[in-house]
């Protein structure tokens, strides 16, 4: 079909899916609470700050209601909503925890999440690839058993538990790290800020890495086990190649394929883990703020967050497909 054709058709598919996601968003944030459950928007949106005046409160409510189009009939509101979503015009924060346009807040906090997620994903990828392949190679031996049991344990560990344990031990116990990231580095500037940021970054980073490494490792190990029994690995051995070369050239390039797909699919779950991890450590990324926003019923922020997560999952899937093609020449021809 050709790469261009493939990309175009994938982008169209993405738009279709994104549209459906927007519709679901609309149902969750606008139809379900106000129309189905019959909640009155006027009492719904209570800004958190109690010091604000009644006039201001009314103003906010008016603004919110207008912003969400809750004063419009459902069908008009729907089109307005869809238009707003696809033009990235997400409205204004309500609820008192955050101020200003939603798009601005998202742009402000996204870097924290990207830093955290990016670093921990890279780390868990590298660890799981090496451990997984080596485990498959030593299948049934002590090394394999120990790493399998350990990583299965990490795999089943709730993210909030890993988080609290790390917090308890390293922040409260050994006092190596601050218990709350945001309050630790907010207000600092320059190198002080960078230093504080890194210090506060370590715990959430470890936490998130531990959460994701188990799943990746299991997939990596089982796909490497499959690959190791393939004839071309036998052939590589027959050629007299060094074990290291067989494992980290022949096995690795083939067994990395499933993990790419799985990563793209599980990105949603990784983001879920990020919500909890960020919340626990007070890491001021999108996950943390999305939880705060839920608490303060900041729906404009929340629906934008949803929309963007879905978009990211779709884009990740798309990138994974492209990467898949780069790694595996067989896939390229099927485009």
């Amino acid at each position, binding site marked *: 079909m050709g790469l261009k054709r493939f990309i175009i058709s994938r982008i169209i598919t993405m738009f279709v899916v994104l549209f459906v996601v927007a519709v679901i968003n609309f149902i969750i944030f606008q139809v379900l609470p106000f129309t189905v459950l019959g909640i009155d928007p006027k009492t719904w949106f209570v800004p958190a700050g109690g010091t604000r005046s009644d006039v201001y409160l009314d103003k906010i409510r008016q603004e919110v209601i207008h912003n969400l189009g809750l004063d419009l009939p459902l069908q008009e509101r729907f089109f307005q909503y869809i238009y707003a979503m696809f033009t990235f015009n997400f409205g204004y924060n309500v609820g008192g925890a955050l101020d200003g346009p939603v798009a601005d807040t998202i742009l402000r906090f996204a870097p924290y999440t990207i830093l955290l997620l990016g670093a921990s994903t890279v780390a868990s990828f590298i660890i799981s690839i090496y451990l997984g392949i080596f485990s498959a190679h030593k299948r049934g031996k002590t090394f394999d058993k120990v790493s399998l049991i350990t990583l299965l344990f990490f795999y089943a560990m709730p993210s909030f538990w890993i988080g609290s344990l790390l917090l308890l031990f390293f922040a409260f116990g050994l006092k190596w790290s601050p218990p709350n990231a945001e309050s630790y580095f907010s207000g600092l500037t320059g190198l002080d800020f960078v230093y504080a940021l890194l210090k506060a970054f370590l715990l959430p980073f470890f936490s998130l890495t531990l959460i994701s490494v188990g799943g990746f490792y299991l997939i990596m190990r089982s796909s490497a086990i499959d690959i190791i029994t393939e*004839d*071309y690995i036998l052939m590589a051995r027959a050629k*007299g*190649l*060094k074990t290291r070369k067989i494992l980290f050239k022949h096995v690795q390039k083939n067994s990395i394929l499933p993990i790419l797909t799985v990563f793209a699919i599980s990105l949603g779950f990784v983001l879920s883990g990020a919500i909890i991890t960020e919340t626990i450590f007070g890491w001021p990324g999108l996950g943390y703020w999305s939880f705060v926003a839920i608490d303060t019923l900041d729906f404009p922020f929340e629906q934008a967050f949803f929309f963007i997560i879905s978009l990211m999952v779709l884009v990740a899937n798309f990138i994974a497909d492209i990467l898949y093609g780069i790694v595996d020449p067989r896939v390229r021809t099927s485009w």
Partner: protein
Amino acid sequence: MSTRILDVENLRMYYKTKEGYVKAVDNVSFKIEKGDFLGIAGESASGKTSLAMTILKLLPPNAEIKSGRILIDGIDITNMKESELRDIRWTKISLVPQGSMNALNPVFTIGGQIVEGIVEHKIMSKKDAWKRAEELLELVGIDKARVKSYPHELSGGMKQRVAIAMALSNNPDVVLLDEPTTALDVIVQANIMNLLRDLQAKLKMTMILITHDLSIIADLCNKVIIYYAGKIAEMGDSLSVYTKPLHPYTQGLLASFPNIRAKRQKLSYIPGTPPNLVNPPKGCRFHPRCPFAFERCRIEEPQLREIEPGHFVACHLY
């Protein structure tokens, strides 16, 4: 004066399984000389592939070599460490594995895969190795421009040729071919057979061909081993084994092979099924299926003996 290139003595290789030891290679001895084309014929699960893998020492973890020696060009590889074997493989002995379709790694170019086998043994520089890869492709009848192709871009027959080219890359003393034509269509198979015949004539290679198809061996090989249930039943020059089969198993197998040039006839078969290699029958392993079996066959295991010059058989009838 011919030189001995491979010498297998009293080789025993068992797989350890939950049910017990699978006696896939049980007291096997044979030798081949330089320039021989040996065919090893056996039915499925007779252990013929295990024999090949034992000779290469490419065995799964549950395999145990119980006894015997394997000498390649006079070098005993039986107790060699993996690191030492690495130097033997691909320079002294190379393999064209079963199902060569899968023998090529789909994510690397065929040229790259040929080159890595040359460069690993430090035989020549990477640049020269690429040249060599092109030569090898031409040798097996593939356009050298395909050197950067990926395996999936080639047909089954071409992949088989690449696998053969790869096995030849370091001029090994022995090439082991494990069912090289099994999944191929007849015309492609004939192509590959002709290629092998030509290569053998041209390069004076020593080759071992393992197959279930007696007619391919008849067509290509000058020596043949008939393998049954982990043991050699009969061994000798092809002409002598095919024209005067001694072992009842060889006789039955040859009779059940349809010959397209023969008159139309009812085909015969060997009754019963091949034995389970965990608990093979006592005495001669073929006795439950043998029409000539007598008391001694049930008790005593027949030894491989030279009945005629160069023609060995393991049967109490002789």
